[in-house]
Protein backbone atom coordinates (compact mmCIF):
# COMPACT_ATOMS: atom_id res chain seq x y z
CA UNK A 1 0.00 0.00 0.00
CA UNK A 2 1.39 3.37 -0.94
CA UNK A 3 1.95 5.85 1.90
CA UNK A 4 -0.86 8.34 2.48
CA UNK A 5 -0.21 12.01 3.26
CA UNK A 6 -2.47 13.38 5.93
CA UNK A 7 -3.76 16.77 4.82
CA UNK A 8 -5.64 15.61 1.69
CA UNK A 9 -7.34 12.93 3.79
CA UNK A 10 -8.36 15.56 6.35
CA UNK A 11 -9.75 17.76 3.58
CA UNK A 12 -11.77 14.83 2.22
CA UNK A 13 -13.02 14.03 5.71
CA UNK A 14 -14.12 17.63 6.29
CA UNK A 15 -15.90 17.65 2.92
CA UNK A 16 -17.59 14.35 3.84
CA UNK A 17 -18.70 15.79 7.20
CA UNK A 18 -20.19 18.83 5.51
CA UNK A 19 -21.74 16.96 2.57
CA UNK A 20 -25.23 16.12 3.90
CA UNK A 21 -25.87 19.81 4.54
CA UNK A 22 -25.67 20.47 0.81
CA UNK A 23 -27.56 17.45 -0.52
CA UNK A 24 -31.22 16.54 -0.70
CA UNK A 25 -32.66 13.39 0.90
CA UNK A 26 -32.14 10.95 -1.97
CA UNK A 27 -28.69 12.34 -2.67
CA UNK A 28 -27.72 11.84 0.97
CA UNK A 29 -28.99 8.28 0.74
CA UNK A 30 -26.94 7.79 -2.41
CA UNK A 31 -23.83 9.04 -0.59
CA UNK A 32 -24.62 6.58 2.22
CA UNK A 33 -25.01 3.77 -0.30
CA UNK A 34 -21.64 4.66 -1.83
CA UNK A 35 -19.97 4.50 1.58
CA UNK A 36 -21.58 1.15 2.46
CA UNK A 37 -20.63 -0.34 -0.90
CA UNK A 38 -17.18 1.19 -0.43
CA UNK A 39 -16.83 -0.64 2.91
CA UNK A 40 -17.77 -3.85 1.15
CA UNK A 41 -15.17 -3.24 -1.58
CA UNK A 42 -12.52 -2.25 0.99
CA UNK A 43 -13.15 -5.46 2.90
CA UNK A 44 -12.64 -7.52 -0.28
CA UNK A 45 -9.38 -5.68 -0.89
CA UNK A 46 -7.99 -7.17 2.35
CA UNK A 47 -8.02 -10.38 0.32
CA UNK A 48 -7.16 -9.07 -3.15
CA UNK A 49 -4.72 -6.26 -2.50
CA UNK A 50 -3.12 -7.46 0.71
CA UNK A 51 -3.15 -11.26 0.48
CA UNK A 52 -3.38 -11.71 -3.30
CA UNK A 53 -6.46 -13.94 -3.01
CA UNK A 54 -9.27 -13.13 -5.44
CA UNK A 55 -12.40 -14.35 -3.73
CA UNK A 56 -15.32 -14.65 -6.13
CA UNK A 57 -17.75 -15.34 -3.31
CA UNK A 58 -17.49 -12.24 -1.19
CA UNK A 59 -21.17 -11.46 -1.71
CA UNK A 60 -21.82 -14.41 0.59
CA UNK A 61 -20.79 -12.35 3.65
CA UNK A 62 -22.69 -9.29 2.48
CA UNK A 63 -25.71 -11.58 2.25
CA UNK A 64 -25.10 -13.09 5.69
CA UNK A 65 -25.06 -9.62 7.23
CA UNK A 66 -28.12 -8.52 5.28
CA UNK A 67 -30.23 -11.56 6.19
CA UNK A 68 -29.13 -11.25 9.80
CA UNK A 69 -30.29 -7.62 9.79
CA UNK A 70 -33.57 -8.69 8.22
CA UNK A 71 -34.22 -11.10 11.09
CA UNK A 72 -32.94 -9.04 13.97
CA UNK A 73 -34.65 -5.81 13.01
CA UNK A 74 -37.97 -7.49 12.35
CA UNK A 75 -38.09 -9.96 15.22
CA UNK A 76 -35.49 -9.37 17.92
CA UNK A 77 -34.19 -5.88 18.46
CA UNK A 78 -33.99 -2.59 16.65
CA UNK A 79 -30.83 -1.50 18.44
CA UNK A 80 -28.12 -0.44 15.98
CA UNK A 81 -25.18 -1.37 18.20
CA UNK A 82 -26.56 -4.83 18.93
CA UNK A 83 -27.11 -5.29 15.21
CA UNK A 84 -23.57 -4.28 14.25
CA UNK A 85 -22.06 -6.41 17.00
CA UNK A 86 -24.13 -9.40 15.93
CA UNK A 87 -23.19 -8.87 12.27
CA UNK A 88 -19.52 -8.73 13.19
CA UNK A 89 -19.78 -11.88 15.30
CA UNK A 90 -21.81 -13.91 12.81
CA UNK A 91 -19.52 -12.67 10.03
CA UNK A 92 -16.50 -13.94 11.96
CA UNK A 93 -18.05 -17.36 12.60
CA UNK A 94 -19.32 -17.90 9.04
CA UNK A 95 -16.15 -16.66 7.37
CA UNK A 96 -13.99 -18.81 9.66
CA UNK A 97 -16.01 -21.90 8.72
CA UNK A 98 -16.14 -21.10 5.00
CA UNK A 99 -12.53 -19.92 4.93
CA UNK A 100 -11.27 -23.11 6.58
CA UNK A 101 -12.80 -25.05 3.68
CA UNK A 102 -12.16 -22.82 0.65
CA UNK A 103 -8.54 -22.04 1.56
CA UNK A 104 -7.73 -25.72 1.08
CA UNK A 105 -7.61 -24.91 -2.63
CA UNK A 106 -5.05 -22.45 -3.93
CA UNK A 107 -4.81 -20.42 -7.12
CA UNK A 108 -7.50 -21.14 -9.68
CA UNK A 109 -9.20 -23.66 -7.45
CA UNK A 110 -9.80 -20.91 -4.91
CA UNK A 111 -11.58 -18.82 -7.55
CA UNK A 112 -13.88 -21.71 -8.43
CA UNK A 113 -14.61 -22.87 -4.91
CA UNK A 114 -15.48 -19.39 -3.64
CA UNK A 115 -17.97 -18.95 -6.50
CA UNK A 116 -19.48 -22.32 -5.69
CA UNK A 117 -19.81 -21.60 -1.96
CA UNK A 118 -21.53 -18.29 -2.59
CA UNK A 119 -23.90 -20.00 -5.01
CA UNK A 120 -24.62 -22.72 -2.46
CA UNK A 121 -25.95 -20.12 -0.03
CA UNK A 122 -27.94 -18.55 -2.87
CA UNK A 123 -29.78 -21.76 -3.73
CA UNK A 124 -30.27 -22.57 -0.03
CA UNK A 125 -31.97 -19.20 0.43
CA UNK A 126 -34.11 -19.78 -2.66
CA UNK A 127 -35.20 -23.18 -1.43
CA UNK A 128 -36.13 -22.13 2.11
CA UNK A 129 -39.08 -20.01 1.03
CA UNK A 130 -40.90 -20.03 4.37
CA UNK A 131 -38.32 -18.30 6.55
CA UNK A 132 -36.11 -16.50 4.06
CA UNK A 133 -38.77 -15.25 1.66
CA UNK A 134 -37.11 -17.19 -1.17
CA UNK A 135 -36.75 -15.23 -4.38
CA UNK A 136 -38.76 -12.30 -2.98
CA UNK A 137 -36.34 -11.64 -0.14
CA UNK A 138 -37.32 -9.95 3.12
CA UNK A 139 -39.33 -6.73 2.67
CA UNK A 140 -40.19 -3.84 5.01
CA UNK A 141 -37.26 -4.09 7.38
CA UNK A 142 -37.42 -1.27 9.95
CA UNK A 143 -34.37 0.95 10.31
CA UNK A 144 -32.32 0.46 13.48
CA UNK A 145 -32.37 2.90 16.41
CA UNK A 146 -29.49 4.34 18.40
CA UNK A 147 -31.33 4.08 21.70
CA UNK A 148 -33.95 1.74 23.15
CA UNK A 149 -37.50 3.02 23.49
CA UNK A 150 -40.42 3.83 21.23
CA UNK A 151 -40.83 7.60 21.31
CA UNK A 152 -37.43 8.59 20.10
CA UNK A 153 -36.74 11.86 18.33
CA UNK A 154 -36.11 11.23 14.64
CA UNK A 155 -32.40 11.96 14.82
CA UNK A 156 -31.83 9.08 17.23
CA UNK A 157 -33.03 6.59 14.63
CA UNK A 158 -31.58 5.77 11.25
CA UNK A 159 -34.89 6.89 9.72
CA UNK A 160 -33.16 10.24 9.55
CA UNK A 161 -30.89 10.18 6.53
CA UNK A 162 -28.53 12.57 8.36
CA UNK A 163 -28.03 10.13 11.21
CA UNK A 164 -27.67 7.19 8.83
CA UNK A 165 -25.07 9.14 6.86
CA UNK A 166 -22.99 9.99 9.90
CA UNK A 167 -23.23 6.49 11.37
CA UNK A 168 -21.99 5.06 8.06
CA UNK A 169 -19.28 7.70 7.79
CA UNK A 170 -18.14 6.81 11.30
CA UNK A 171 -17.98 3.10 10.42
CA UNK A 172 -16.10 3.87 7.21
CA UNK A 173 -13.54 6.10 8.95
CA UNK A 174 -13.05 3.41 11.60
CA UNK A 175 -12.45 0.87 8.83
CA UNK A 176 -9.98 3.14 7.02
CA UNK A 177 -8.05 3.79 10.23
CA UNK A 178 -8.03 0.06 10.92
CA UNK A 179 -6.73 -0.70 7.44
CA UNK A 180 -3.99 1.94 7.77
CA UNK A 181 -2.95 0.41 11.08
CA UNK A 182 -3.03 -3.06 9.49
CA UNK A 183 -0.75 -1.97 6.66
CA UNK A 184 1.73 -0.52 9.14
CA UNK A 185 1.66 -3.57 11.42
CA UNK A 186 3.78 -6.74 11.35
CA UNK A 187 0.62 -8.62 10.35
CA UNK A 188 0.33 -6.38 7.29
CA UNK A 189 3.91 -7.20 6.36
CA UNK A 190 3.21 -10.93 6.66
CA UNK A 191 0.14 -10.51 4.41
CA UNK A 192 2.24 -8.66 1.89
CA UNK A 193 4.91 -11.34 2.02
CA UNK A 194 2.31 -14.05 1.39
CA UNK A 195 0.97 -12.12 -1.59
CA UNK A 196 4.40 -11.71 -3.13
CA UNK A 197 5.70 -15.21 -2.52
CA UNK A 198 3.71 -17.70 -0.47
CA UNK A 199 6.26 -20.48 -0.92
CA UNK A 200 9.05 -18.34 0.51
CA UNK A 201 6.92 -17.35 3.50
CA UNK A 202 6.18 -21.01 4.12
CA UNK A 203 9.89 -21.77 3.94
CA UNK A 204 10.51 -19.03 6.49
CA UNK A 205 8.21 -20.87 8.85
CA UNK A 206 5.05 -18.79 8.59
CA UNK A 207 1.83 -20.84 8.71
CA UNK A 208 0.56 -19.33 5.44
CA UNK A 209 -2.92 -20.80 5.50
CA UNK A 210 -3.55 -19.62 9.05
CA UNK A 211 -2.63 -16.06 8.07
CA UNK A 212 -4.82 -16.32 4.99
CA UNK A 213 -7.65 -17.44 7.25
CA UNK A 214 -7.08 -14.41 9.52
CA UNK A 215 -7.38 -12.14 6.47
CA UNK A 216 -10.42 -14.05 5.23
CA UNK A 217 -12.18 -13.61 8.58
CA UNK A 218 -11.32 -9.88 8.69
CA UNK A 219 -12.73 -9.42 5.20
CA UNK A 220 -15.82 -11.53 5.87
CA UNK A 221 -16.75 -9.82 9.13
CA UNK A 222 -16.44 -6.30 7.68
CA UNK A 223 -18.52 -7.39 4.68
CA UNK A 224 -21.21 -8.70 7.04
CA UNK A 225 -21.36 -5.31 8.77
CA UNK A 226 -21.69 -3.64 5.37
CA UNK A 227 -24.49 -6.08 4.53
CA UNK A 228 -26.37 -5.26 7.75
CA UNK A 229 -26.10 -1.53 7.00
CA UNK A 230 -27.19 -2.07 3.40
CA UNK A 231 -30.29 -4.03 4.40
CA UNK A 232 -31.18 -1.26 6.87
CA UNK A 233 -30.68 1.40 4.20
CA UNK A 234 -32.84 -0.27 1.56
CA UNK A 235 -35.35 -1.71 4.12
CA UNK A 236 -35.03 -4.86 2.05
CA UNK A 237 -32.95 -7.98 1.54
CA UNK A 238 -32.77 -9.18 -2.04
CA UNK A 239 -31.42 -12.73 -2.55
CA UNK A 240 -29.63 -11.58 -5.72
CA UNK A 241 -27.00 -10.28 -3.26
CA UNK A 242 -25.86 -13.87 -3.09
CA UNK A 243 -25.82 -14.57 -6.83
CA UNK A 244 -22.22 -14.83 -7.93
CA UNK A 245 -22.40 -11.82 -10.26
CA UNK A 246 -22.78 -9.55 -7.18
CA UNK A 247 -19.42 -10.86 -6.02
CA UNK A 248 -18.15 -10.27 -9.55
CA UNK A 249 -19.31 -6.66 -9.41
CA UNK A 250 -17.42 -5.92 -6.22
CA UNK A 251 -14.25 -7.37 -7.76
CA UNK A 252 -14.88 -4.99 -10.65
CA UNK A 253 -15.04 -2.06 -8.21
CA UNK A 254 -11.82 -3.06 -6.47
CA UNK A 255 -9.89 -3.57 -9.70
CA UNK A 256 -11.31 -0.41 -11.32
CA UNK A 257 -10.24 1.72 -8.37
CA UNK A 258 -6.93 -0.01 -7.86
CA UNK A 259 -5.89 -2.77 -5.49
CA UNK A 260 -2.69 -1.08 -4.37
CA UNK A 261 -4.14 2.21 -3.15
CA UNK A 262 -5.72 2.38 0.30
CA UNK A 263 -8.80 4.19 -0.94
CA UNK A 264 -8.82 2.64 -4.45
CA UNK A 265 -11.78 0.30 -3.76
CA UNK A 266 -13.76 3.24 -2.34
CA UNK A 267 -13.21 5.23 -5.53
CA UNK A 268 -14.07 2.14 -7.57
CA UNK A 269 -17.34 1.68 -5.66
CA UNK A 270 -18.26 5.35 -6.14
CA UNK A 271 -17.50 5.13 -9.88
CA UNK A 272 -19.49 1.92 -10.22
CA UNK A 273 -22.56 3.27 -8.42
CA UNK A 274 -22.35 6.59 -10.28
CA UNK A 275 -22.29 4.67 -13.57
CA UNK A 276 -25.19 2.55 -12.35
CA UNK A 277 -27.36 5.47 -11.24
CA UNK A 278 -26.57 8.13 -13.83
CA UNK A 279 -25.71 6.07 -16.91
CA UNK A 280 -28.57 3.77 -15.96
CA UNK A 281 -31.06 6.60 -16.48
CA UNK A 282 -29.61 7.39 -19.91
CA UNK A 283 -29.25 3.90 -21.30
CA UNK A 284 -30.35 0.44 -20.25
CA UNK A 285 -27.10 -0.93 -21.55
CA UNK A 286 -24.74 0.53 -18.96
CA UNK A 287 -23.45 -2.93 -18.13
CA UNK A 288 -22.04 -3.20 -21.63
CA UNK A 289 -20.14 0.05 -21.11
CA UNK A 290 -19.01 -1.20 -17.72
CA UNK A 291 -17.85 -4.54 -19.10
CA UNK A 292 -15.86 -2.86 -21.87
CA UNK A 293 -14.32 -0.30 -19.50
CA UNK A 294 -13.34 -3.14 -17.22
CA UNK A 295 -11.73 -5.17 -20.02
CA UNK A 296 -9.75 -2.09 -21.10
CA UNK A 297 -8.63 -1.44 -17.50
CA UNK A 298 -7.48 -5.05 -17.05
CA UNK A 299 -5.53 -4.94 -20.32
CA UNK A 300 -4.01 -1.46 -20.19
CA UNK A 301 -4.16 -0.23 -16.58
CA UNK A 302 -3.98 -3.39 -14.46
CA UNK A 303 -3.19 -1.38 -11.33
CA UNK A 304 -6.50 0.46 -11.58
CA UNK A 305 -7.51 4.05 -12.07
CA UNK A 306 -6.32 5.59 -8.78
CA UNK A 307 -2.60 4.80 -9.34
CA UNK A 308 -3.06 5.94 -12.95
CA UNK A 309 -4.20 9.36 -11.72
CA UNK A 310 -1.74 9.69 -8.82
CA UNK A 311 1.17 8.72 -11.08
CA UNK A 312 0.04 11.27 -13.67
CA UNK A 313 -0.05 13.93 -10.92
CA UNK A 314 3.43 12.95 -9.74
CA UNK A 315 4.78 13.08 -13.29
CA UNK A 316 3.18 16.50 -13.80
CA UNK A 317 4.93 17.70 -10.66
CA UNK A 318 8.20 16.36 -12.06
CA UNK A 319 8.54 13.56 -9.52
CA UNK A 320 9.49 10.12 -10.76
CA UNK A 321 6.46 7.80 -10.33
CA UNK A 322 7.03 5.86 -7.16
CA UNK A 323 8.55 2.63 -8.39
CA UNK A 324 8.35 1.09 -4.94
CA UNK A 325 4.63 1.70 -4.63
CA UNK A 326 4.06 0.50 -8.19
CA UNK A 327 5.91 -2.74 -7.54
CA UNK A 328 4.02 -3.36 -4.32
CA UNK A 329 0.70 -2.66 -6.03
CA UNK A 330 1.12 -5.10 -8.89
CA UNK A 331 -1.23 -8.05 -8.97
CA UNK A 332 0.44 -11.22 -7.78
CA UNK A 333 2.02 -13.41 -10.40
CA UNK A 334 0.59 -16.88 -10.71
CA UNK A 335 -0.04 -17.92 -7.13
CA UNK A 336 -0.84 -21.49 -8.11
Amino acid at each position, binding site marked *: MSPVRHWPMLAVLLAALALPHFTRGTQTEFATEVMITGMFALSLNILIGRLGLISFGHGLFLGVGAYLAGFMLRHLSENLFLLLAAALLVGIVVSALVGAMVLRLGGVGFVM*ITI*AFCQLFYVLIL*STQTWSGGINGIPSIPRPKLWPGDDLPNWLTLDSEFTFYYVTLGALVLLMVGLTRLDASPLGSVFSGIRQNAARMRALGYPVRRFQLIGFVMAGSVAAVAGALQASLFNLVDPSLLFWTTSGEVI*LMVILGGVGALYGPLVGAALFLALFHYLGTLTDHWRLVLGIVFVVVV*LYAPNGLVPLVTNAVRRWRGVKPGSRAAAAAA*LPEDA*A
Partner: protein
Amino acid sequence: MQIIVEQVLNALQMGVLLFLIASGLSLVFGLMHVVNLAHGALYMVGAYFGITVARGLDNFYLALLLAPLLTAMLGVVLERTLLARTYGRGMYPQVLLTLGLVFAFDELVRIIWGAPIQTLALPPGLEGTVMLFGASVPAYRVLVVVIGAVAIVALLLGFGRTRLGAMVRAGVDDREMAAALGIDVNRLFSGVFAVGSALAGLAGVLSVPIFNAYPGMGSEILISALVVVVVGGMGSLAGALIASLLIGAATVVGQIYAAEFSTAVIYLVLVVVLLVRPQGLMGIAR
Protein backbone atom coordinates in the same frame (compact mmCIF):
# COMPACT_ATOMS: atom_id res chain seq x y z
CA MET B 1 -40.27 -49.34 -15.34
CA GLN B 2 -41.59 -46.21 -16.98
CA ILE B 3 -40.37 -44.04 -14.10
CA ILE B 4 -36.96 -45.66 -13.84
CA VAL B 5 -36.22 -45.32 -17.56
CA GLU B 6 -37.48 -41.74 -17.54
CA GLN B 7 -35.34 -40.71 -14.58
CA VAL B 8 -32.25 -42.47 -15.87
CA LEU B 9 -32.72 -40.63 -19.16
CA ASN B 10 -33.14 -37.33 -17.29
CA ALA B 11 -29.95 -37.95 -15.37
CA LEU B 12 -28.08 -38.85 -18.56
CA GLN B 13 -29.37 -35.79 -20.37
CA MET B 14 -28.31 -33.52 -17.56
CA GLY B 15 -24.93 -35.22 -17.30
CA VAL B 16 -24.34 -34.98 -21.05
CA LEU B 17 -25.16 -31.26 -21.20
CA LEU B 18 -22.96 -30.58 -18.17
CA PHE B 19 -20.11 -32.51 -19.72
CA LEU B 20 -20.32 -30.61 -23.00
CA ILE B 21 -19.89 -27.36 -21.10
CA ALA B 22 -17.46 -28.55 -18.44
CA SER B 23 -15.14 -30.37 -20.83
CA GLY B 24 -14.31 -27.16 -22.68
CA LEU B 25 -13.81 -25.32 -19.42
CA SER B 26 -11.60 -28.10 -18.08
CA LEU B 27 -9.48 -28.37 -21.25
CA VAL B 28 -8.97 -24.63 -21.52
CA PHE B 29 -8.02 -24.61 -17.87
CA GLY B 30 -5.70 -27.60 -18.17
CA LEU B 31 -3.82 -26.26 -21.17
CA MET B 32 -3.89 -22.52 -20.68
CA HIS B 33 -4.44 -22.23 -16.90
CA VAL B 34 -7.29 -19.84 -17.69
CA VAL B 35 -10.52 -19.95 -15.71
CA ASN B 36 -12.71 -18.81 -18.54
CA LEU B 37 -15.69 -17.26 -16.78
CA ALA B 38 -16.94 -16.22 -20.23
CA HIS B 39 -17.45 -19.91 -21.06
CA GLY B 40 -21.04 -19.59 -19.85
CA ALA B 41 -21.43 -16.59 -22.14
CA LEU B 42 -20.33 -18.77 -25.08
CA TYR B 43 -22.99 -21.32 -24.11
CA MET B 44 -25.58 -18.54 -24.09
CA VAL B 45 -24.41 -17.11 -27.41
CA GLY B 46 -24.52 -20.63 -28.88
CA ALA B 47 -28.15 -20.92 -27.81
CA TYR B 48 -29.03 -17.59 -29.46
CA PHE B 49 -27.08 -18.41 -32.63
CA GLY B 50 -29.11 -21.61 -32.73
CA ILE B 51 -32.38 -19.69 -32.41
CA THR B 52 -31.43 -17.32 -35.23
CA VAL B 53 -30.31 -20.10 -37.57
CA ALA B 54 -33.27 -22.35 -36.77
CA ARG B 55 -35.74 -19.53 -37.40
CA GLY B 56 -33.89 -18.01 -40.36
CA LEU B 57 -33.35 -21.24 -42.26
CA ASP B 58 -36.37 -22.95 -40.73
CA ASN B 59 -34.24 -25.98 -39.97
CA PHE B 60 -33.39 -27.14 -36.44
CA TYR B 61 -30.84 -29.70 -37.60
CA LEU B 62 -28.84 -27.06 -39.46
CA ALA B 63 -28.88 -24.99 -36.27
CA LEU B 64 -27.34 -27.93 -34.38
CA LEU B 65 -24.50 -27.85 -36.90
CA LEU B 66 -24.03 -24.11 -37.51
CA ALA B 67 -24.44 -22.73 -33.98
CA PRO B 68 -21.36 -24.59 -32.63
CA LEU B 69 -19.34 -23.48 -35.67
CA LEU B 70 -20.31 -19.83 -35.20
CA THR B 71 -19.59 -20.06 -31.47
CA ALA B 72 -16.18 -21.57 -32.19
CA MET B 73 -15.38 -18.68 -34.53
CA LEU B 74 -16.40 -16.16 -31.88
CA GLY B 75 -14.32 -18.03 -29.31
CA VAL B 76 -11.20 -17.91 -31.48
CA VAL B 77 -11.67 -14.18 -32.14
CA LEU B 78 -11.96 -13.56 -28.37
CA GLU B 79 -8.93 -15.70 -27.64
CA ARG B 80 -6.73 -14.10 -30.31
CA THR B 81 -7.74 -10.47 -29.77
CA LEU B 82 -8.19 -10.32 -25.98
CA LEU B 83 -7.05 -13.35 -24.01
CA ALA B 84 -3.78 -13.69 -25.94
CA ARG B 85 -2.72 -10.31 -24.56
CA THR B 86 -2.78 -11.63 -21.02
CA TYR B 87 -0.62 -14.74 -21.51
CA GLY B 88 2.42 -14.70 -19.28
CA ARG B 89 0.89 -12.16 -16.90
CA GLY B 90 -0.35 -14.66 -14.35
CA MET B 91 -3.86 -15.98 -13.87
CA TYR B 92 -5.62 -12.96 -12.38
CA PRO B 93 -5.69 -10.67 -15.44
CA GLN B 94 -7.21 -13.57 -17.39
CA VAL B 95 -9.93 -14.32 -14.86
CA LEU B 96 -10.75 -10.62 -14.58
CA LEU B 97 -10.81 -10.14 -18.35
CA THR B 98 -13.32 -12.96 -18.77
CA LEU B 99 -15.38 -11.52 -15.89
CA GLY B 100 -15.65 -8.25 -17.86
CA LEU B 101 -16.75 -10.28 -20.88
CA VAL B 102 -19.54 -11.91 -18.83
CA PHE B 103 -21.08 -8.50 -18.15
CA ALA B 104 -20.55 -7.29 -21.72
CA PHE B 105 -22.06 -10.41 -23.32
CA ASP B 106 -25.16 -10.52 -21.11
CA GLU B 107 -25.91 -6.98 -22.24
CA LEU B 108 -25.00 -7.58 -25.89
CA VAL B 109 -27.46 -10.46 -26.03
CA ARG B 110 -30.11 -8.19 -24.52
CA ILE B 111 -29.41 -5.60 -27.22
CA ILE B 112 -29.34 -8.00 -30.17
CA TRP B 113 -31.97 -10.58 -29.23
CA GLY B 114 -33.99 -8.76 -26.55
CA ALA B 115 -34.57 -9.52 -22.88
CA PRO B 116 -37.70 -11.78 -22.96
CA ILE B 117 -37.37 -15.55 -22.69
CA GLN B 118 -37.23 -17.20 -26.11
CA THR B 119 -37.83 -20.76 -27.10
CA LEU B 120 -37.69 -23.00 -30.14
CA ALA B 121 -40.38 -25.35 -31.35
CA LEU B 122 -39.07 -28.83 -32.02
CA PRO B 123 -39.12 -30.08 -35.61
CA PRO B 124 -42.00 -32.53 -36.35
CA GLY B 125 -39.91 -35.67 -36.05
CA LEU B 126 -38.77 -34.88 -32.51
CA GLU B 127 -41.98 -33.74 -30.86
CA GLY B 128 -43.34 -37.14 -29.97
CA THR B 129 -42.20 -39.96 -27.77
CA VAL B 130 -40.32 -43.13 -28.58
CA MET B 131 -40.41 -46.53 -26.92
CA LEU B 132 -37.26 -47.40 -25.00
CA PHE B 133 -36.91 -50.50 -22.80
CA GLY B 134 -40.68 -50.76 -22.60
CA ALA B 135 -41.20 -47.13 -21.62
CA SER B 136 -42.28 -44.19 -23.75
CA VAL B 137 -39.88 -41.28 -23.45
CA PRO B 138 -39.59 -37.90 -25.23
CA ALA B 139 -37.73 -38.36 -28.51
CA TYR B 140 -35.76 -35.15 -28.10
CA ARG B 141 -34.20 -36.27 -24.81
CA VAL B 142 -32.99 -39.42 -26.49
CA LEU B 143 -31.50 -37.31 -29.29
CA VAL B 144 -29.69 -35.06 -26.78
CA VAL B 145 -28.18 -38.09 -25.04
CA VAL B 146 -27.15 -39.66 -28.36
CA ILE B 147 -25.54 -36.47 -29.71
CA GLY B 148 -23.82 -35.94 -26.39
CA ALA B 149 -22.55 -39.52 -26.32
CA VAL B 150 -21.17 -39.16 -29.86
CA ALA B 151 -19.44 -35.92 -28.90
CA ILE B 152 -18.00 -37.51 -25.77
CA VAL B 153 -16.64 -40.53 -27.64
CA ALA B 154 -15.21 -38.32 -30.39
CA LEU B 155 -13.59 -36.07 -27.80
CA LEU B 156 -12.12 -38.91 -25.75
CA LEU B 157 -10.81 -40.68 -28.89
CA GLY B 158 -9.41 -37.46 -30.35
CA PHE B 159 -7.82 -36.62 -27.04
CA GLY B 160 -6.46 -40.04 -26.24
CA ARG B 161 -5.70 -41.64 -29.62
CA THR B 162 -4.57 -38.96 -32.10
CA ARG B 163 -1.29 -37.14 -32.59
CA LEU B 164 -3.03 -33.80 -32.02
CA GLY B 165 -4.56 -35.12 -28.82
CA ALA B 166 -1.13 -36.24 -27.65
CA MET B 167 0.17 -32.75 -28.29
CA VAL B 168 -2.66 -31.26 -26.21
CA ARG B 169 -1.99 -33.74 -23.41
CA ALA B 170 1.69 -32.83 -23.52
CA GLY B 171 0.73 -29.16 -23.24
CA VAL B 172 -1.54 -29.85 -20.27
CA ASP B 173 1.22 -31.81 -18.54
CA ASP B 174 4.04 -29.34 -19.03
CA ARG B 175 3.58 -26.34 -21.24
CA GLU B 176 7.23 -25.25 -21.33
CA MET B 177 8.52 -28.72 -22.15
CA ALA B 178 5.95 -29.15 -24.93
CA ALA B 179 6.96 -25.80 -26.42
CA ALA B 180 10.63 -26.75 -26.17
CA LEU B 181 9.89 -29.94 -28.12
CA GLY B 182 8.67 -27.85 -31.03
CA ILE B 183 4.92 -27.89 -30.44
CA ASP B 184 3.37 -24.56 -31.41
CA VAL B 185 1.59 -24.04 -28.10
CA ASN B 186 -0.07 -20.80 -29.15
CA ARG B 187 -1.80 -22.45 -32.12
CA LEU B 188 -2.74 -25.31 -29.85
CA PHE B 189 -4.34 -22.78 -27.47
CA SER B 190 -6.48 -21.39 -30.27
CA GLY B 191 -7.47 -24.86 -31.42
CA VAL B 192 -8.44 -26.02 -27.93
CA PHE B 193 -10.32 -22.79 -27.31
CA ALA B 194 -12.21 -23.32 -30.58
CA VAL B 195 -13.16 -26.89 -29.63
CA GLY B 196 -14.21 -25.79 -26.15
CA SER B 197 -16.32 -22.96 -27.59
CA ALA B 198 -17.93 -25.29 -30.13
CA LEU B 199 -18.90 -27.74 -27.37
CA ALA B 200 -20.34 -24.92 -25.28
CA GLY B 201 -22.25 -23.68 -28.34
CA LEU B 202 -23.56 -27.19 -28.99
CA ALA B 203 -24.73 -27.50 -25.39
CA GLY B 204 -26.37 -24.08 -25.74
CA VAL B 205 -28.41 -24.89 -28.83
CA LEU B 206 -29.31 -28.36 -27.51
CA SER B 207 -30.66 -26.86 -24.30
CA VAL B 208 -32.95 -24.26 -25.89
CA PRO B 209 -35.95 -26.59 -26.46
CA ILE B 210 -35.62 -27.88 -22.87
CA PHE B 211 -34.64 -24.87 -20.75
CA ASN B 212 -35.41 -21.92 -23.13
CA ALA B 213 -32.99 -19.06 -23.75
CA TYR B 214 -32.64 -15.82 -21.78
CA PRO B 215 -29.88 -13.33 -21.01
CA GLY B 216 -27.99 -14.53 -17.95
CA MET B 217 -28.53 -18.23 -18.68
CA GLY B 218 -24.77 -18.56 -19.09
CA SER B 219 -23.99 -17.16 -15.65
CA GLU B 220 -26.28 -19.78 -14.12
CA ILE B 221 -24.92 -22.80 -15.96
CA LEU B 222 -21.31 -21.66 -15.51
CA ILE B 223 -21.44 -22.41 -11.80
CA SER B 224 -22.63 -25.98 -12.35
CA ALA B 225 -19.86 -26.43 -14.91
CA LEU B 226 -17.27 -25.06 -12.49
CA VAL B 227 -18.49 -27.47 -9.84
CA VAL B 228 -18.12 -30.33 -12.33
CA VAL B 229 -14.57 -29.22 -13.17
CA VAL B 230 -13.55 -28.98 -9.50
CA VAL B 231 -15.20 -32.28 -8.55
CA GLY B 232 -13.69 -34.08 -11.55
CA GLY B 233 -10.23 -32.64 -11.09
CA MET B 234 -9.04 -29.63 -13.04
CA GLY B 235 -7.77 -30.40 -16.51
CA SER B 236 -8.95 -34.01 -16.53
CA LEU B 237 -11.44 -34.98 -19.27
CA ALA B 238 -12.22 -38.36 -17.73
CA GLY B 239 -12.76 -36.66 -14.39
CA ALA B 240 -15.13 -34.16 -15.99
CA LEU B 241 -17.10 -37.04 -17.54
CA ILE B 242 -17.42 -38.94 -14.26
CA ALA B 243 -18.31 -35.77 -12.35
CA SER B 244 -20.93 -34.73 -14.94
CA LEU B 245 -22.68 -38.09 -14.75
CA LEU B 246 -22.40 -38.14 -10.97
CA ILE B 247 -23.87 -34.68 -10.61
CA GLY B 248 -26.57 -35.37 -13.21
CA ALA B 249 -27.59 -38.45 -11.23
CA ALA B 250 -27.35 -36.65 -7.87
CA THR B 251 -29.60 -33.85 -9.13
CA VAL B 252 -32.26 -36.28 -10.34
CA VAL B 253 -32.14 -38.23 -7.07
CA GLY B 254 -32.40 -34.92 -5.25
CA GLN B 255 -35.44 -33.95 -7.30
CA ILE B 256 -37.16 -37.17 -6.32
CA TYR B 257 -36.36 -37.25 -2.60
CA ALA B 258 -35.93 -33.58 -1.64
CA ALA B 259 -37.44 -31.51 -4.41
CA GLU B 260 -37.04 -28.26 -2.48
CA PHE B 261 -33.30 -28.67 -2.12
CA SER B 262 -32.53 -30.30 -5.47
CA THR B 263 -30.52 -27.30 -6.67
CA ALA B 264 -28.33 -27.50 -3.59
CA VAL B 265 -27.41 -31.15 -4.16
CA ILE B 266 -24.55 -30.43 -6.55
CA TYR B 267 -22.93 -28.14 -3.98
CA LEU B 268 -23.28 -30.86 -1.39
CA VAL B 269 -21.39 -33.21 -3.72
CA LEU B 270 -18.79 -30.49 -4.16
CA VAL B 271 -18.26 -29.90 -0.45
CA VAL B 272 -17.96 -33.63 0.28
CA VAL B 273 -15.45 -34.17 -2.54
CA LEU B 274 -13.51 -31.08 -1.53
CA LEU B 275 -13.21 -32.22 2.07
CA VAL B 276 -12.19 -35.76 1.17
CA ARG B 277 -10.14 -35.12 -1.97
CA PRO B 278 -9.29 -31.44 -2.54
CA GLN B 279 -7.67 -32.10 -5.93
CA GLY B 280 -10.87 -33.65 -7.33
CA LEU B 281 -11.77 -37.21 -8.25
CA MET B 282 -9.24 -37.63 -11.07
CA GLY B 283 -7.00 -34.67 -10.29
CA ILE B 284 -3.32 -34.98 -9.46
CA ALA B 285 -2.26 -33.42 -6.18
CA ARG B 286 0.43 -30.82 -6.77
